[in-house]
């Protein structure tokens, strides 16, 4: 019997069955893989935080190598001595503070409400590191990262990532030659807190001057660079009142 595929009733029936089958497949897939995907996101955040702190497997001058996912959970537990959430001016310890959706919290703060700000305290070889997250806007989409400072508020490491900056231009904020420039700059000077700025033409492309609070911009990525500056400025503005407070906790 040949199927009459032109009949309206057949078309409707076909669509109903197709949608149900496809819906079932996708729902099954989504539930089945959800745990695994969340775990990957956890590992990624832990890797990023540790990277900012200077814990990584970098072997050469140019590539970014994280702690492998098989070890990261354990290393994170060993090195990160405190995970705090800052809310209403108080820092309270909270487990898995890195799973906080910073974008949502920043939106809350922008609308005048109290948002939760995660802060991590790491310890390695007797040195203490304060690591805070950053979130902002590049040219096309979101950019984010972590910054780690020591007790004298000198940057010990940063990590940047982006959702959709131009490959080869703005997306280079996650390259070593850009991120490494931040190390050694200080976020505090005689005149108060100084957010590090990404600037063009500061006559210091190799960034040997560590006291100018300036980092050489990426050619062809002006707006992404400005985004990075704005993101750092915003984060330091938010965390500034608490740096002192958190330091006294230890």
């Amino acid at each position, binding site marked *: 019997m040949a199927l009459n*595929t*032109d009949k309206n009733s057949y078309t409707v029936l*076909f669509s109903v069955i197709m*949608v149900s089958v*496809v819906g079932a497949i*996708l729902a099954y897939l989504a539930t089945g893989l959800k745990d695994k*995907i969340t775990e990957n996101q956890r590992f990624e955040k832990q890797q990023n935080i540790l990277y900012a702190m200077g814990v990584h497997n970098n072997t050469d001058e140019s590539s970014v190598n994280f702690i492998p996912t098989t070890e990261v959970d354990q290393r994170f537990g060993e090195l990160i001595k405190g995970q705090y959430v800052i809310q209403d001016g108080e820092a309270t310890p909270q487990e898995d503070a890195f799973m906080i959706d910073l974008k949502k919290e920043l939106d809350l703060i922008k609308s005048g409400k109290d948002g939760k700000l995660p802060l991590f305290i790491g310890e390695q070889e007797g040195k203490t590191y304060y690591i805070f997250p950053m979130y902002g806007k590049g040219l096309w989409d979101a950019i984010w990262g972590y910054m780690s400072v020591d007790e004298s508020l000198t940057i010990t490491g940063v990590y940047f990532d982006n959702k959709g900056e131009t490959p*080869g231009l703005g997306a280079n904020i996650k390259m070593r030659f850009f991120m490494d420039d931040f190390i050694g700059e200080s976020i505090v000077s005689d005149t108060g807190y100084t957010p590090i700025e990404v600037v063009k033409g500061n006559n210091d492309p190799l960034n040997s001057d560590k006291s100018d609070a300036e980092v050489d911009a990426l050619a062809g990525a002006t707006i992404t660079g400005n985004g990075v500056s704005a993101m750092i400025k915003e984060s330091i503005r938010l965390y500034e009142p608490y740096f002192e407070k958190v330091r006294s906790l230890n």
Partner: protein
Amino acid sequence: MPLLSKKESKLILDPLADNNPITIQVLGICSALAITAELKASVVMAVSVLFVLGMGNVVISLMRNIIPSKIRIIVQLVVVATLVIVVDQTLKAFAYELSKTLSVFVGLIITNCIIMGRFEAFALGNGPWRSFLDGIGNALGYGVILIIVRFFRELLGSGTLFGIPVLGDPIAKTGLYAFGYENNGFMIIPPAALIVVGILIWIQRAKNPSLVEEA
């Protein structure tokens, strides 16, 4: 008996050269322009298209006798979208690093005209095995062009290949840069891809005049 008959191997080899989806059929140009700015992304994109087109062609071919002709385009879209989500979710779970590079291009795969074009032109009228070969062939033809375009864009635009500097250091002025060579920033932006694709089309037709369309 060889693995593939002569007709079957033609299905794979033709799209690589004389029936290339990008340079001859001029399909899938948009994604070819957008994602050829980085060699790694191009390779990931080519592999994803290979999977989606190979699988999709088989699925459509199996269903070709029961798909209502009135809504066949919608059915094709649903098949592509489902496959793309399956790829995306699986990568997120098992190859997280790769999925971060790919996720931006998921939408581009769904709208890639090569996929809809092959479903419509081939899978609806042929058996699953031949459709599979056709899908693989076209995806490879697409991938080859992507990688060629990217090769020139990355080399001339950034002086690197796969992110590794090959022409020296532009800041420290070593290698070629010591002789006054400069990277061409224009090669990084999408219009440069259009020019590279255009040159490829020109070279291919100059070598094989039978490909030239009647004006």
